[in-house]
């Protein structure tokens, strides 16, 4: 009897323990942030005054623009929380937003910025020139990705609403910087707060609701009733849901759990068949960055004929159709069609021609081919087989070297590989700054010629037609000298549910927050 009781007791304790642990586990979230999945099964209606839910493939952290990344997820959240001094327009131009006027001097070394009057941060502090100056200094020492852009800049406060940004070298990128992270100004009080990274205070149209958010999963932002332009934002609540899995994003769209989500090229047809509205925007170029132009790792690459042969080894139309899922535009220029720097007549310069490529290699003294290594970065090797096969077709043996994702930047940017499967940035100024100029990060071996340096200086220090011509000349120069074997420009694709409209902007490849509207 005693034994039976003990056993029964044991079973009871086991049962209670299991139930208790499950309840404890489930209830623990009460104390922390509640893990609400906005919409869940009921869906998100996205009506005026309601909630709009956007899926982000990237976790938009930290919420502090001093340390924030330049990825698309943070851009949306930063715009919502902080607004921007400048903004992109549909034609790719950058115009004042929280600023009212930005005037550059004759060589783009000084920009005079006038701010909108009467704007306040959500903590009641006044948005003024000093707030920007304090912010910029914080970015310089904040250790975030924008620090590199901020360091060459100095700010002089002229009056409460006016400041000057100066740099020693001509810097045409300043307006774009003010449309991005450096234009997302937080309250000066946030900068000194211990929880600055998780308690953002800005002057944007929305305010972070920490209680209804779970970092890494769901970010809930509610309307800022004091925003200077609140009527432009029809939704009272903006929820950003982190969905890293593409299948999860399209499923969430189909079931109305989210209203806007990025889709992959392979999901475009499925999205259209499901009745989603698709937005497409040509964005980064895809191809190969022929980085070792001085032949430091592979001497053969110093010969321009060898680099040109590589450019001819790729069938761009077939690549766009098959490797990019038909979602892109074939081309051999770094600047996309319709943007400054693109020249239509150069589109066929390196037509696919294996025989001509082989003869160029032979002319250069490499008829027998040569070998080189390309990185196989964990998770981003999808184009490597294509590169290996096409290079082999002209006699170049490419071998993959495994690179853990954590070491990708260190190894690739450290100059370990002569050829890097490449993607380019979207705007002409950014492209020159990040891929072509001598200090550009993706000019991995920091190669430059006097002629190209002069063109870069002209582009950096001019505006209007002169700058446009300089971009075209740069595009032609890097094309003639085969710095990049470009295949084309892939589309950024966003799916929208039936009740929502939004618009893509050429330079950001992300539907802009201020274009989110209820439909019908």
């Amino acid at each position, binding site marked *: 009897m005693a034994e039976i009781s003990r056993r029964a007791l044991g079973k009871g304790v086991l049962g209670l323990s*299991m139930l208790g642990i499950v309840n404890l586990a*489930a209830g623990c979230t009460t104390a922390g942030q509640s893990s*609400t999945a906005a919409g869940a099964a009921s869906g998100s209606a996205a009506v005026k005054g309601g909630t709009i839910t956007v899926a982000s493939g990237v976790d938009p*952290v930290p919420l502090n623009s001093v340390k924030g990344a330049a990825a698309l997820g943070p851009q949306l959240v930063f715009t919502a929380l902080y607004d921007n001094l400048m903004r992109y327009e549909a034609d790719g131009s950058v115009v004042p937003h929280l600023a009212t006027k930005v005037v550059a001097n004759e060589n783009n070394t000084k920009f005079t910025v006038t701010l909108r009057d009467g704007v306040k941060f959500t903590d009641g502090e006044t948005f003024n020139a000093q707030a920007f100056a304090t912010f910029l200094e914080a970015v310089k020492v904040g250790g975030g990705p924008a620090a590199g852009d901020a360091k060459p800049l100095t700010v002089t406060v002229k009056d409460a609403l006016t400041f000057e940004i100066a740099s020693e070298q001509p810097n045409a990128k300043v307006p774009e910087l003010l449309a991005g992270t450096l234009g997302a100004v937080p309250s000066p009080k946030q900068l000194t707060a211990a929880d600055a990274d998780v308690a953002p205070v800005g002057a944007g149209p929305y305010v972070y609701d920490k209680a209804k958010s779970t970092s890494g999963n769901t970010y809930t932002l509610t309307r800022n009733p004091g925003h200077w332009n609140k009527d432009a934002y029809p939704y009272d609540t903006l929820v950003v849901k982190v969905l890293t899995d593409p299948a999860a994003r399209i499923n*969430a769209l189909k*079931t109305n759990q989210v209203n806007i989500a990025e889709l992959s090229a392979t999901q475009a047809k499925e999205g259209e068949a499901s009745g989603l509205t698709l937005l497409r925007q040509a964005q980064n170029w895809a191809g190969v960055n022929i980085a070792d132009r001085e032949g430091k790792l592979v001497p053969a690459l110093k010969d321009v004929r060898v680099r040109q042969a590589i450019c001819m080894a790729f069938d761009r139309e077939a690549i766009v159709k098959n490797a990019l899922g038909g979602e892109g535009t074939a081309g051999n220029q770094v600047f996309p069609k319709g943007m400054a720097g693109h020249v239509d007549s150069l589109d066929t310069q390196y037509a696919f021609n294996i025989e001509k490529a082989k003869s160029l290699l032979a002319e250069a003294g490499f008829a027998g081919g040569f070998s080189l290594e390309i990185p196989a970065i964990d998770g981003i090797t999808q184009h490597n087989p294509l590169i290996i096969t096409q290079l082999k077709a002209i006699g170049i043996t490419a071998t993959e070297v495994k690179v853990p994702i*954590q070491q990708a*930047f260190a190894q690739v940017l450290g100059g370990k590989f002569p050829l890097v499967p490449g993607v380019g940035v979207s705007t002409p100024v950014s492209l020159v700054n990040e891929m072509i100029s001598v200090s550009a990060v993706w000019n991995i071996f920091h190669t430059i010629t006097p002629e190209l340096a002069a063109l870069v200086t002209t582009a950096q220090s001019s505006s209007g037609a002169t700058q446009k011509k300089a971009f075209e000349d740069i595009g032609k120069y890097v094309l003639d000298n085969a710095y990049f074997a470009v295949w084309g420009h892939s589309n950024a694709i966003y799916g929208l549910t039936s009740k929502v409209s939004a618009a893509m902007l050429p330079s950001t490849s992300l539907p802009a927050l201020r274009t989110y509207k209820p439909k019908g």
Partner: protein
Amino acid sequence: MLTFIAKRLVSAVGLVLLVTFVTFALVFSNGMAIARTLLGNSVSEAEVVAKYRDLGLDQPVVQQYGQWLGAALTGNLGRSYVSGEVVAEAIMTRLPVTLTLVLLTLLFALVISVGLGVAAAVKGGWVDRVLQVVSVVGGAIPQFIVAVFLVVTFAVTWRLLPATGYVSPDVDPVMWALSLVLPVTAILVGAAASGSIQIRGRMLDELRKEYVATLRTRGISERSVLFKHALRNAAGPGLIGMGILAIGMLGGSVLIERVFALPGLGMLANTSTVSGDIPMLMACVLFTILVVVVINLVIDLLLGVLNPKVRL
């Protein structure tokens, strides 16, 4: 029993120290790569070096581990390199999600496995054959495929259950339960398949033993023979199997958390690894080990209750 528990706890502490140190040594051995990953691709080498030094990644690994361990013992796991969150707070929001997923799956797997395993062992014939076929199929289909099938069928096509997301029970208990149906089922298919075939095998072994025949000849009821004697003796290996299953689920939960966008520990560990968020990653490792240690301890204790020889 107390000595038994004390021995297990001492070995658990050793295990925690060993695994955290090995993890620490592995991930901190390349501080420059961590700094570069954190800053992205548009900063100069000098800025990467500055970040590397700022985070203290230039110090010897043993020294860094000592500092981390000392702080961890006081409950301070630091702040996330990426989000700036207090790591302990972040873990406390993620751990319950993963534990709920694992424990609910385990609970259902236990019930289904015992039910099906015993039925197959006792009934034999077509019941046994069906179970074997179902187990092979259930165990062979990858979790990911099961998850996608469930989402497409029950969320996208029939709109019965949410496709993604987790709702905290204090916000909406019904939605909490609904949000877990598909993720739990996705893991349960494989878990129940392997669990039931294990229980079946153990039960068959027990039922062939002489003491079972003796009990039957003494007129003990078949129900008592099965559930009070044979199942109890078969439960030991079954419990160990369940423990292994639970530990496997902790590691495998990342896939399910990703597909269903659940804010669990698995996804946190995964993103922390990719983004170089070492304080967060170390906390994920620490808490995963602690959960494993607790699961092992509970199983050891249960085995000790079932079979006193284990305590020796």
